[in-house]
Structures are given as C-alpha cells and as structure tokens.
C-alpha cells in the first residue's frame, strides 16, 4: 500500500509545494520507491528530472542484446524473428505449416528420412488469438531470421522506393557539403561549419542517410551520389540553404483512388473489419484502414537506462544497471535515505453531539478542549481504512516512520508553509506528537534482544527535541543528547501515543472533517528529520577529533518533508449511501501523498516554522505547544 507521496523540488531550491488545492502541485509527487537521492547535492531526484542515458538495448521477446550501433538501422525493433500479432499484439510463434507437418508425419509413417525439408514453409501464429500469417500470405523458408527474410521478399512498393531514393539524394547533397563524411575524402576545413553542434547533427544525419533501411533498396553510395556531392560543394551553399524538396509523384491521385476504394468497402461494412485506432497510428507509412490490412510488426526494443543527477555541476550517476543481469551496479534510491512513511490504524472518535450548525469559533473551542483532554477521552472505534470518511467526524490515524539508517533519527512534524489555496481546506489536521525519534535499522536478530528492555526509557526521551533542526553546533548537540535518551519533561504526557518497535515509530494524527465538507481531504505535512552525518563536508571533517566530529555534521541532517493526506468524500447526500468511490477504483477512499524536499547545506530553515503558520492545521498544534 504505497499511498504516501513525496515531493521532489527537481532542480529548484527546495520549497514547500503549492497546496493540494492546486491540481498542478500533484505533478511533483511520487511514491518513495520511485525516488532517487543524490548524495552530492543532498537532494531528492525523481524520474521527471533525472538525466537518462541508454545503457543497453534488448529485445523483450528473444532477450537478445542489440548493439547500440545496430539499433537505428533496425528502427529500434527486433531484427531477428520477433513479431507482434496484428490483432492482439501478443508475440507471434513460428510454426511449421500444417501441410508440411502432415506430410512429414506421412513421411515418418512411410519410413523415409525425416531430414526431408523438416517442415517448411513456416508460418507466424498467435498463441493468444490464433491469428496466422496464412491470412496475409506470409511464409518463410526457415524458422530463423524472419525479419531479414521478410525484408527481401516483402519490400516497399516500387513508387515508395523511388520516392525514398529521391528524397535521400536531395538530403545527401545538402549534408555532404556542410559536413562531408570521411568517405568523401575531403577535410572539413574546406567547408563552412556553422557550429560544433550543427556539425554533429549533420554528421549523424549523414551516417543515418548512408545506412541501410530495411524494406528499402541498398544505400546509394554509387557514382550518382558522389557526383552530386561534388557539384554542390563547388557552389559552397550555406548550411541553412536547403532547397525545398519536390515529390516525384502526386499522392493526390493515389489518395483519390484509395478514397474510392474505401467508399466501396464502407458500403459493405458490417462492423468488425475496421482496423482499431491503435493499429493505425502505430504504422508510420500508410495506415491500414481495414483490420485485414494490418501486418505483424517487429517487436520494439527495450532499453536499460543509466540515470544521472540532473544538476549541471553534479551529473553523478544515480542508477547504473548491469547489462547482463537484473542487478544494479549503482543504485542511489530515496528509500535508503528517507524514512518510509505509512498511514494506518484508523479510528473514529465517538462524540455525543453532532458538529453540524456550530460556528467556526465554537468548532475551534471544541477542538482545543478535545486536545487538552484527549488522554481521558478515549472513546474511539476502530474503522476500516477503505471505508469512506464522513463530514463532521473526527478520526485518528497512526503515522508510521521506518528508519532506513543505521543511526537513530529525530523527526519533527510541522505544517507546510505554502500560500493559501483557492479552496478552503475541508478539514483540520493535528499531530499531537510533533517530535520523536526513530530507532536505527539493525539486523533482524538484534531487535529481538532489545525489544524487552529499552523501549520504556527510549520513549521518555522522545519529547526532548527542542532543537530547531538548525545548523548550529549547540542545537546539534542538544539533538544528539536527546537521541541518547536523556529524559525531558516537555510534552511528556503525550508520549503515551508514541509506539516504537525496532526502527519503526508510530505517532498519532488527528483528522477532523468539517461539517458539510465534500471532495478529497488533502494536506501537506512538513517532516524534518535529523540524523548523524558521517561524512562532514569540506575541511570540517571528522579528522578534527572524535568529539567534534560528532557534532560538525554540517547542514546535511536537516530535511523537510511535505506530506499530503487525501481522501474522497462526496456531497452530503451521497455520503450516507456510503462507498461513493466509483470514480476511484483501486484507490479506495484514502490516498496519501507525501512530499519531500531536502534543504541544501547551509541554507536557512524555511522561515517561521516554529511560529504560528498561515495554515489552519498549524493553529491547533501551535496553541497546544504554547500552552504546554
């Protein structure tokens, strides 16, 4: 249940995302297991911002690794024997034709040698829908290298080939004079090269132009092409003076003829024969109109990707796949750096009176009262996470933080500082435990021993995180003391709500859905966690002494994270009819998104986090803290 989403600020300065009432804000969120982490930049990276290079190409059906040099000539499709079904896109099997198998059976029965042309011709057959290439007359002499057999037998029609050659000649003249290929035997110094960039492009284009194109005739490296290049280079035309290309044939005539044919076909249509739209737009040349005209397609190649940090001065590799196995040689992923956050154990508070009809002040007063007396007020009812939430109810959840680090971390929850959204929030969020620690990750056997004794003591220390998560040494020292389990009297009464086990800490979260609310409930939460930075930056390294090293961790340890909690309700009438979730299959009623961003070293903490913020959810928590 990966429902919590994390925020990636991409290449911008980390900042609070726009509130969830801006639909555009959702684009910057991803589940934790889709995120990367650049240690150099100390920043989250996501699939939308990483730089991507192809590490290797392979065919997903025959699993053959295709050398990068062949990929373009093969048009990024498998050049061996892998075809997809024109009807259902499954991979086609190569089968011996029925007549052949019959005859070979007859042959074995009559005792003749089985080597007799084992069972050619071969056909393509779909294992899923039983389509056969017999329907379009495709037959093969041998069961291997079907793609090359096909390109010899079934090449492009005459007029298409002629047009292609003409176009190639036209472009070749242009390319050879701006960036002559080595075969032309001329130094590039004779020619005007507008810029390195353009030259690279034209060289690549020249190479591409000389490459064999499957289905078309061989490359025209003959005298004609060379003569053309010679003529043009005398003229020394500018690189951008490409003359317009005139088609040899008018396609209008052809199109008209096809149109007439189509009208005839349509007169006889009964329904199923028209090619579905996805078949039509995947074929580049003349899209088939009728399903009987769709042909098997060679299977598109897949690629393994290398991913790099997008920062222009960084470019560190975040993902480096092994081309031979599923292992990753380099794997810098978010889950190894950021605590995993989950939401669960939903409970509904049982109250005697309805909240309907109360004014804003009355609601606020009740809220404060409830929070002051919450320890006594334990009348809650467990509820299923997938049930719809109802307006006017107060729910409590647990937020679970799982620490991926081998050191304890200290977590601080707060409201996200963001502009007020266009829509008033339909809910209030309150986190009774804003500071707590999460135990270190250990090997499984270590947890069993520790579970019995130390949890009590540990809990007592969790409230002591008075530090601002700032960068000063004293703050860090304080934080480290509380990590070591020094008891603190602040917020002590609340610690009962913290549940710890191993590297997981669960804290409470209160959601009050306002009366009359409808639509999704979404909110951002800023999560800042402090951990010990092993590798201090620059000169302030651990070499200065063990005592110092422990506290000079630099700004590396301050993170903020924004969390959005979402659930859907509909308008009040629908609400009683329960499950008004038809529009969201698979999501259930609760989706959460957590948005995370990290702060670069030395940057000041976002202003005013400790002060009352603009968000409504902040007020409750702040008042509580002030009063304590």
């Amino acid at each position: 249940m990966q429902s919590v989403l994390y925020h990636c600020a991409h290449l911008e300065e980390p900042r609070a995302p726009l509130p969830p009432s801006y639909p555009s804000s959702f684009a910057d969120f991803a589940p934790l297991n889709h995120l990367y982490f650049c240690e150099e930049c100390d920043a989250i990276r996501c699939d939308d911002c990483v730089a991507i290079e192809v590490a290797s190409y392979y065919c997903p059906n025959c699993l053959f690794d295709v050398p990068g040099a062949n990929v373009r000539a093969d048009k990024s499709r498998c050049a061996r024997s892998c075809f997809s079904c024109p009807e259902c896109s499954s991979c086609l099997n190569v089968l011996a034709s029925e007549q052949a198998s019959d005859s070979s059976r007859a042959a074995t029965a009559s005792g003749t040698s089985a080597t007799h042309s084992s069972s050619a011709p071969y056909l393509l057959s779909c294992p899923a829908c039983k389509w056969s290439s017999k329907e379009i007359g495709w037959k093969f002499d041998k069961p291997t290298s079907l793609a090359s057999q096909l390109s010899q037998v079934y090449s492009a029609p005459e007029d298409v080939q002629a047009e292609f050659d003409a176009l190639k000649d036209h472009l070749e003249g242009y390319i050879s004079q701006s960036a002559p290929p080595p075969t032309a035997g001329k130094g590039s110094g004779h020619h005007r090269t507008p810029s390195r960039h353009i030259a690279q492009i034209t060289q690549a284009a020249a190479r591409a132009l000389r490459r064999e194109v499957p289905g078309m005739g061989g490359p025209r490296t003959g005298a004609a092409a060379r003569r053309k290049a010679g003529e043009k280079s005398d003229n020394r035309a500018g690189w951008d003076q490409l003359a317009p290309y005139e088609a040899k044939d008018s396609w209008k005539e052809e199109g008209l003829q096809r149109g007439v044919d189509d009208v005839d076909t349509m007169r006889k249509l009964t329904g199923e024969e028209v090619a579905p739209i996805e078949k039509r737009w995947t074929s580049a040349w003349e899209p088939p109109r009728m399903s009987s005209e769709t042909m098997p397609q060679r299977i598109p190649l897949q690629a393994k990707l290398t991913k790099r940090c997008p920062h222009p001065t960084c470019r560190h590799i975040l993902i480096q796949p092994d081309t031979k196995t599923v292992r990753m040689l380099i794997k810098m992923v978010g889950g190894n750096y950021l605590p995993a956050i989950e939401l669960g154990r939903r409970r509904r508070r049982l109250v005697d009176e309805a909240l309907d009809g109360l004014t804003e002040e009355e609601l606020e007063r009740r809220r404060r009262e409830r929070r002051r007396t919450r320890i006594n007020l334990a009348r809650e009812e467990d509820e299923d996470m997938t049930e719809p939430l109802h307006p006017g109810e107060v729910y409590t959840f647990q937020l679970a933080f799982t620490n991926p680090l081998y050191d304890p971390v200290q977590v601080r929850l707060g409201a996200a500082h963001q502009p007020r959204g266009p829509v008033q929030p339909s809910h209030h969020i309150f986190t009774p435990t804003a500071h707590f620690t999460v135990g270190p990750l250990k090997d499984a056997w270590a947890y069993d021993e520790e579970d019995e004794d130390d949890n009590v003591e540990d809990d007592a220390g969790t409230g002591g995180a008075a530090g601002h998560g700032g960068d000063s040494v004293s703050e860090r020292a304080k934080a480290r003391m509380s990590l070591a389990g020094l008891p603190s009297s602040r917020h002590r009464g609340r610690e009962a709500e913290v549940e710890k086990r191993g590297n997981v800490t669960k804290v409470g979260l209160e959601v009050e859905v306002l009366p009359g609310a409808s639509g999704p409930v979404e909110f951002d939460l800023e999560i800042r966690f402090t951990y010990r930075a092993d590798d201090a930056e620059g000169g302030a390294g651990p070499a200065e002494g063990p005592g110092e090293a422990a506290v000079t961790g630099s700004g590396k340890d301050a993170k903020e994270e924004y969390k959005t909690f979402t659930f859907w309700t509909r308008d009040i009438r629908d609400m009683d009819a329960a499950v008004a979730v038809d529009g969201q299959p698979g999501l259930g009623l609760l989706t959460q998104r957590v948005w995370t961003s990290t702060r670069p070293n030395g940057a000041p903490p976002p202003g005013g986090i400790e002060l009352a913020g603009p968000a409504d959810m902040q007020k409750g928590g702040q008042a509580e803290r002030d009063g304590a």
Partner: protein
Amino acid sequence: MGAFDPVQTFEKGTYIETDTGNKVSRKATILGATNIILGGKSIIQTRAVIRGDLRRSAPGQHVVISMGRYCLVGEGAVLRPPGKIYKGAFTFYPVRIADFVHIGADAIVEAASIGHGVEIGAGAIVGKFCIIKDLVQILPDSVLPDGAIVPSMTVWGGNPARMLSSLPETYQETIEERCKSYYQRFRAV
C-alpha cells in the same frame, strides 16, 4: 514498510509446518508430493492444487515442480507443469520457480520457469511454457498466452497480457521484503 500490515492467521492444526519452515495447508491438494521440492519458508494455502503427479513419461525419478524460499501458492491457485507432444508422444515438462514468488489466489500457472521476485496477481492465468524472468509483476486477472516470454523489471496485464510498464529500480527490495513479511505474519492463532 508494511508497518500496518495485519497478521494473517490460520487455525492451529490446519497447516503442516515442515522442518524447513514451509507451511502447507491440510486442505491443499498436493499430488505426487515426492516429485515436488519446496525450498523452505514457503506457504501453500487452502484449496491450492499442485500437480507433482504430472511427470515426464520417461522412466525414473523426476522433479516435477521445484520452488524456492519465501514463495506463496495462494488460496485456490493451481500450479501444474506444462505438457506438449514431443516426437510423437505427449509429455510433461518440469517447472522451476525461484525465490520470492507469490502466486495469488485462484491463479492458474503452467509456466516453464518463474524467476526470482515475481508476483502473479489473483485470478491470473499463466499459459503453458511461459518463461517469466526475475523481478516481474503480473497483474490480477491477466492472461499470459502460451509460451510468452516476460523480461525482467516489467509489469504485464490484460487479456492477452501485454507489457504495460516497467518496475522501479527498488522493486527487488520491495518484493523480497513483502514476501518475508508475509511469511512472518502468516501464523497460527
């Protein structure tokens, strides 16, 4: 991860626990048990059907189904070896299943091999002689045609199933942890 996953309980005595930690329902149909190898810490749930009896026609002892560690054959799932006519005679071929393979409830699997860290959704049908490589997700209710080859790090779904997307680089950790966690949470009342 999985901090709120509920414990999956079964009534005491309804499952047999082997020395290597396999948990096998007494209500599962397991035929030809001597031809089946379980790697340990794997679970075979109620109503599951495992056909170890469908063995190669050649004489001698044959392993029909081998399964690694932390695997799951869900409730009502059917696992049987694929068979075809070879040299004029019908014969079955063995099934190899690696570690961390979850086969969902009521799925039907006739694959030739299933790699490490594969999740087959509930109600899915995996056709004869399919080859599923390491780290793959087959969505619930999808139908893989006979002989389909499913490359690593991909998600397949639909009928007939197609490649829908690729898995994140973290998938290996995710699935291993999920399978281990499932095994640990699956215990007697």
